[in-house]
């Protein structure tokens, strides 16, 4: 991906990421999150991960975020009132975050070879990346796949148990 486009999407993604955090209205936060994920999906596609880009939009921006919005609506959450800041917590949080960024930057730029352009890939293998991911999933990763099935069952049972008004 050409650099300008990359940077646009990155800034797009980060800006809405920040908006998730700073918006006082939960709905606005959720919407920002959706947009942020769109940017993220674009970045996936820029990395030739088309399948994941689509999944990202379908699952995340589509399903998960709708779930979020739905819950926010259901609970009728209002915008957070402006309250006095807990200065110590604020300060502490920011310090921790800044220090963490410092670590991240050090680590990222210490990565050898990361400054080179990505190696070229051949687009003419015949199967798209969806096929490739699928093959890996059902061959090499069939055990985790079964496990994730169990996980989803547990999650759905759990969600029902916890949110159903009256159990029977």
């Amino acid at each position: 991906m050409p650099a300008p486009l990359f940077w646009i999407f990155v800034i797009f993604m980060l800006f809405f990421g920040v908006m998730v955090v700073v918006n006082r209205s939960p709905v606005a936060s959720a919407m920002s999150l959706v947009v942020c994920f769109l940017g993220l999906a674009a970045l996936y596609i820029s990395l030739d991960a088309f399948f994941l880009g689509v999944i990202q939009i379908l699952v995340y921006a589509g399903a998960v975020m709708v779930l979020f919005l739905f819950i926010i609506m259901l609970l009728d959450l209002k915008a957070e009132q402006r309250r006095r800041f807990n200065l110590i917590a604020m300060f502490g949080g920011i310090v921790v975050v800044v220090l963490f960024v410092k670590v991240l930057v050090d680590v990222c730029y210490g990565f050898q070879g990361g400054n080179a352009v990505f190696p070229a890939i051949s687009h003419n293998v015949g199967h798209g990346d969806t096929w490739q991911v699928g093959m890996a999933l059902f061959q090499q990763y069939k055990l985790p796949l079964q496990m994730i099935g169990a996980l989803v069952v547990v999650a759905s049972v759990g969600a029902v148990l916890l949110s159903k008004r009256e159990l029977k």
Partner: protein
Amino acid sequence: MSPILLELIVLALGLGLLLIESFADRLNRNIIAIIGIIGLACVFLLLQFGSFPASEVAGYTQDKAALFFKKFALITTIIVLIMSIDYSDTVRKFVHGITPQAGIGEFYSLPILTCAGLMWMASATDFVIIFISLELVTVSFYTLVAFTRRNPASLEAGAKYLILGALSTGFFVYGITWIYGITQNTNLTSIAKVLPSIPVSNQTGLLFGAMLVIVGLGFKVAAAPFQFWVPDVYQGAPTPITAFLSVGSKAAGFIVLLRVLEAFQSLPAIESKLSFAIVLLAAATLVYGNLAALPQTNFKRLLAYSSIGHAGYLLMAVASFGALDAGLAVVVYLAAYLLMTLLSFIVLIIVAKNSEGDDITHFNGLSKRSPFLAFSLLIAMASLAGVPLTAGFLGKFLVFKVAFESQQFLLIVVAIVTVGCGFYYYLKVVRAMYWQTTTGTQTAIPVSLLSTITIGALVVLIFLFGIFPQLGAGLLS
């Protein structure tokens, strides 16, 4: 027999029970628990007496440690189910339901699914499998912790566990990312092979990833400073689930931690830094868990702090990874920990049910109300404190031994102090049971047959492990 079958059987058992739960309305829910217990016991027997060829599935191993931890998970789940039967009245009280048995069946069957996750964790040597099984366990615990949702404490605990658990998952995943990014592998065996060829400039990133993985696992095993969820969640969660968390989840965390560290041993530069990190964690955990337990007045919370403290001793053994018997020390310690912690919780459930509370003062005069429970809890406390001729001592002994062997003198000094603290707070319970007189109700406490057998078996096992160290020494053979 294919090793993978075991988890599938457990999974099928759990799902089957869920089905029974939904379609057999009239069925006494305790039957579900009993079926679960019997089913798990069968799997345990299968595991004990069956033979398992080496696994052919990538990222899934069936070594001694894996087998041990599977048995460990099974026993834990069985005892948790037994506890749950005693606890079902409380669950009933705190669950919205139109029928009196609402939710009980799920309360019995979810732990079985969790158990499958724990068993997978025991065998996982690939970060993908580790991650998924870990999440399977975590997600089911989110549900279980918040299960008694008319109890605000339970919900609060659930929320805290959820947020902090997800936070730790975030770090864990990010750590995996970095490890993958640098080694181009998620399989621990392959990572171990690749590591020596990692250029020095990439070691920082690798270390960063490994540290974040340790952070995620540290959260699971309740290592300071990632232990803050533990007291609150333990206190708020339904007691059998607390027991499950404190035994099953922790043990699974330790096996994964051991496997990860084992993989990193092939690169000494990283390994030394990681073990230094573990030393720091161990010291902090020992100090935090044991010291903060000193002023506790709530027994359940006390057990939470004690659980942190024991994580400290376990980390001490992990930090001594170079020593001959370090793995054995962890295993023996966990086995002892299982016996004594579950014993404490099962007694706690019975006493709390009859005393309407789980403060230490509710144990006042227990020796009169139920000499059997009092004596059992006495044994549990003695074992937790590390009195010789109990299982807890054998664990502590091995931990100190491996720590000395790998010259972790800082940890030893800290541990000496914390063992002293441990005596204080465990004996506080003994004091309540034996010195104090009952403040509230004086009636004798009934104990169901199943619980009596379980308690008796645990007491006997605690002694057997303490008196015959070969039982512990043979755990990995």
